[in-house]
């Protein structure tokens, strides 16, 4: 196994967080078509998402031996899922940045659905490519249902938490269904870890326990949001919730890379 996989842990989780946030942003806009989403809040959300995408792209370079040759990374689109992943990420970044430039213009409201559809398609294609990259027949520990479920859970859980953090002042954050969704994703993420990764030993066990503590902490914070509307407006709690969720998913991905087990030689 390539020892330098830490950058891949951050790359995959940050990409999935940004994609998930874009998906939930689009879904919210569809649900609340008549709501007055200010340009300013939309701009901040997109800035934060584009920042995450650019950081993840930069991190991707860290595991390359020859980053100067990375321009060739999309040469094999017809066969390589890695090429398709890089293309999807590049399109997503270009599209988000382009929309950021257009957002102050008067007709940007009309362009919002187009932006949402394109970002949704490229986002889904990005996550799907990532799943296919790691579904390698000779790596038996990755070539199973754990990989897609884990990647989808990370996209939804981190994406929704990040989206709620960016919009904690708006009514969306107060929305009970959003908080219930976070709880459901936490539960799925936990069940996926336990069901598909049967045995935890040594350092993996310590990491797994730390992950459970973080997920439990996140659940307690959500419970406090249900109990007090006032607490809902405290940014520090939203930041803490996001940090707990993203750290637990980073640990989960780290365990995933540690589980690398190749059949053959």
């Amino acid at each position, binding site marked *: 196994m*390539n020892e330098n996989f830490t950058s891949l842990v951050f790359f995959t989780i940050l990409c999935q967080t940004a994609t998930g946030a874009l998906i939930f942003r689009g879904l919210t806009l569809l649900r609340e078509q008549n709501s007055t989403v200010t340009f300013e809040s939309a701009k901040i959300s997109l800035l934060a998402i584009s920042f995450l995408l650019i950081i993840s792209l930069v991190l991707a370079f860290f*595991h*390359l*031996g*020859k*980053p100067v*040759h*990375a321009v*060739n*990374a*999309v*040469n*094999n689109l017809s*066969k*390589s*899922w*890695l*090429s398709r992943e*890089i293309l999807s990420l590049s399109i997503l970044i270009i599209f988000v940045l382009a929309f950021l430039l257009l957002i102050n213009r008067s007709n940007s409201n009309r362009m919002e659905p187009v932006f949402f559809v394109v970002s949704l398609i490229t986002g889904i294609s990005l996550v799907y490519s990532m799943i296919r*990259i790691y579904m*390698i*027949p*000779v*790596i038996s520990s990755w070539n199973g249902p754990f990989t897609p479920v884990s990647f989808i859970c990370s996209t939804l859980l981190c994406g929704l938490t990040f989206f709620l953090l960016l919009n904690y002042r708006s009514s969306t954050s107060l929305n009970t269904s959003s908080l219930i969704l976070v709880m459901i994703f936490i539960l799925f993420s936990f069940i996926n870890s336990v069901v598909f990764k049967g045995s935890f030993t040594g350092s993996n066990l310590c990491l797994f326990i730390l992950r459970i503590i973080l997920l439990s902490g996140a659940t307690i914070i959500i419970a406090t949001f249900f109990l007090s509307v006032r607490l809902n407006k405290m940014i520090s709690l939203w930041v803490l919730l996001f940090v707990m969720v993203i750290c637990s998913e980073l640990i989960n991905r780290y365990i995933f890379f540690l589980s690398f087990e*190749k*059949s*053959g*030689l």
Partner: protein
Amino acid sequence: MYAFYINSSVCSGCKTCQSACKDKNDLKPGINWRRVYDIQGGGYKSENGTFTTVPFAYNLSVSCFNCENPRCMTACPTKAIYENENGIILIDHDLCMGCRYCEWVCPYGAPQYDPEIKMMTKCNLCEDYISEGKKPSCVDSCPMRALDFGTANEMKSKYGSVAQVFPLPDPSVTGPGMILKAHKDSIRATASNAVANFREDQQDE
């Protein structure tokens, strides 16, 4: 398509093939395009109330098998891994970005990372020797004559078509250019009660 013949039943594990390959290709420590694996283990057999051991030990000399469906070539995002006009799978160092994905997908451990040039390297079947009508250096150096090389059809007609023994993967995965004569002990390695270990001996480092 080219193929190697490996006679595991006579391989003594002397690693002359490995040394010849390193010498011919000037390979750095840690990079072994040809590797000799030491496979050993055993189990127990119960007969008339007594237990007897069923040990096994054999060697397997492995390199790039120039597969029919090379996973490394399909997975490479830069198209750095390509098949040349003679059907030999090679790496173009003007394209490789050193992502090491080919290392993950190859079940034979053929693509190997060179930390000095920060790119992947792999066995080139001694293509310069082949073009001169000679055999790869590993084949000609083997003192036990455990290795042979030629076109896939030639090797199949000479030696049959077996291409699987523990711990090699199912040949249907990549269609390796490899014909194998298994060691008589190798059947024991896959017995249900056997414990089998294999390691690549890297004493040259």
